[in-house]
């Protein structure tokens, strides 16, 4: 199968869906001629014109609000938020307006909208351009949240997101834009709420989101060399969350590590870990371990930044601890 980058995969998904549905449009900063600083959108304005690939002033709350209104009145906006860190600027429009409109109107209005943004540290971009803020939006009922872990996932999830009748937030890992993966030429969509088992295993389950899926995969390889059989699962969407899929694996292996690049405290790992603890408690041989980013603003200095996020070695080390029963003494 051909291999394309995550960036190309997103671009293809957008182009296909924009061809399919003339009510879709892209809105954001430097999305047209510049194709965004990450060049993900290159070529789209040439095909769809500036009426549907709309450059905005630097006014995130404003264009997010415009997208909400457009979605309520028959259009399908795809909002491009240049950095995930800017989500703080649009929280009101996203969480007080978009997320609640369908419910508050008793089902009479809806907001079919995609917010494309990114996440991920270790790019030396410092504290305001490196955050992974998906836990915040996952906490707000009315929003769906997708976290593609490869080019293949990015394309399939994006296409589903655009066809969804609800506000969907997609977090792309900005360090993965140039990562290639096999992506079929034929159309495909990836349904929301169905976890993907990337690697089967029997001793321990590694649940990873976004780029942490690769981290888990690498950890599984390290562990395999030590005769520890790790199962690797990608929830794909954290809202809806495929609870059953995760529980099934947890019940099978009886040991679980959850890895995510958001800050650990009050983050995504807590939700997944506590659901597993709650619903697979009597199957577990050890507590579910969580590995998120450190609870510190992301530092600029390379010497510091690299140690703030989970690594394959770190995951493997924790897996060994769980296998050896070391946690018993710790707990």
């Amino acid at each position, binding site marked *: 199968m051909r291999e394309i980058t995550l960036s190309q995969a997103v671009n293809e998904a957008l182009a296909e869906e924009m061809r399919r549905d003339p009510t879709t449009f892209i809105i954001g900063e430097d999305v047209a001629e510049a194709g965004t600083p990450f060049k993900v959108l290159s070529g789209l304005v040439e095909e769809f014109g500036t009426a549907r690939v709309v450059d905005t002033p630097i006014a995130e709350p404003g*264009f997010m609000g*415009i997208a909400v209104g457009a979605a*309520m009145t028959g259009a399908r906006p795809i909002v491009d938020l240049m950095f995930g860190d800017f989500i703080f600027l649009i929280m009101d429009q996203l969480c007080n307006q978009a997320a609640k409109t369908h419910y508050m109107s008793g089902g009479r*209005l809806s907001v079919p909208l995609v917010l494309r943004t990114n996440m991920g540290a270790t790019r030396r971009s410092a504290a305001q351009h490196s955050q992974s803020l998906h836990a915040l939006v996952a906490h707000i009922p009315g929003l769906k949240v997708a976290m593609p872990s490869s080019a293949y996932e990015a394309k399939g999830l994006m296409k589903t997101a655009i066809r969804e009748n*609800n506000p969907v937030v997609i977090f792309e890992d900005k360090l993965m834009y140039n990562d290639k993966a096999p992506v079929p030429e034929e159309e495909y969509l990836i349904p929301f709420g169905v976890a993907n088992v990337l690697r089967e295993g029997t001793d321990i389950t590694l649940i990873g989101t976004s780029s942490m899926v690769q981290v888990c995969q690498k950890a599984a390889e390290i562990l395999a060399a030590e005769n520890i059989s790790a199962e690797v699962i990608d929830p794909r969407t954290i809202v809806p969350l495929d609870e059953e899929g995760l529980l099934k694996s947890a019940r099978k292996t009886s040991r679980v590590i959850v890895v995510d690049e958001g800050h650990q405290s009050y983050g995504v790992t807590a939700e997944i870990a506590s659901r597993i603890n709650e619903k697979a408690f009597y199957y577990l041989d050890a507590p579910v371990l969580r590995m998120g980013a450190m609870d510190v603003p992301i530092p600029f200095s390379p010497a510091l930044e690299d140690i703030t996020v989970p690594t394959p070695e770190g995951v493997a080390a924790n897996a060994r601890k769980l296998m050896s029963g070391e946690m018993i003494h710790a707990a």
Partner: protein
Amino acid sequence: MSPAKNTKTNSEEYLRMYTQMVRIRTFEDNANQLYLTAKMPGLTHMYSGEEAVAVGICEALTDDDKITSTHRGHGHCVAKGANFKQMFCELLGKEEGYCRGKGGSMHIADQSHGNLGANAIVGGSMGIATGAAFTAKLLGKDDVTVCFFGDGATAQGLMYEVMNMAALWNLPVIYACENNGYSEYTRTEEIAAGSITARAEAFGIEAHQVDGQDVLAVNTLAQKLVARARNGEGPFFIELMTYRYHGHHVGDINREYYRTKDEEKHWKEERDPITLFSAWLTKEGIATSEELDAISAGVKDDAKTAVEYALAAKYPDISEVDMHVYAPTDPASLTVGG
């Protein structure tokens, strides 16, 4: 008052405007009564005194045209064509309400008439209104959107962000600032530096100030600007000078610390939009005062019936609590080639 059109041929329109203003006032009197008798849950913000604004503008709109409304939204809702029954049901949290009781006073919406909803975030609907106008332009439809908001909302940065884009993209949106002299318990002078209309003009947006108690003046201006916006000449900005008779919300009773009874009296007695318009209607011979009284009486009856209906109507079943969190998506559309 100066009429927009020939008084004779337009008497029907004038009487409709009159009726709509009376409907708003009557709706509010009943809502207030429901609050005072503890029959209504929560709080609500009364529109009484500002009727000429909502009616003057909404009478210039079609059902395809959109509006966005505010926390003080009953007036806009009535003016845009909503019926009393569904409105009172909503205020009381009943299943037959416009939002199945889930929204209440602060989120009442009426999609069938293009009312995209009240909003409990001051300024929160400015993006939505601008986005509705964006849709019209994108899809080549000719509807116009009016964004209602208060003087207080002009302090929200969102307004300047969306005005900038509306101006750059010539969107068919009209920003209608209801300047009632107060935001909550604070006078407008204390929270707004410079000039409100100049702020719009600085973005290249044509701005007007109009007497918000004069329904004909409001309607005449609105007719013109709506036609021009439909024609691609938008956006526009209107500052409508008006006054709210009640407190900020129904519970704001002792308000002499921020405004005098004399001031309230002056507006009610000298500047009431309904009294002014009824005087004009009788003077112009469009209706007799008996005819106008009959309109009022009819509206009162309507309201009474609607209130009784709503009080007796049932609450949503508790199974509704987690319905409408997400809109359904047709599964077929989520498949290849779908």
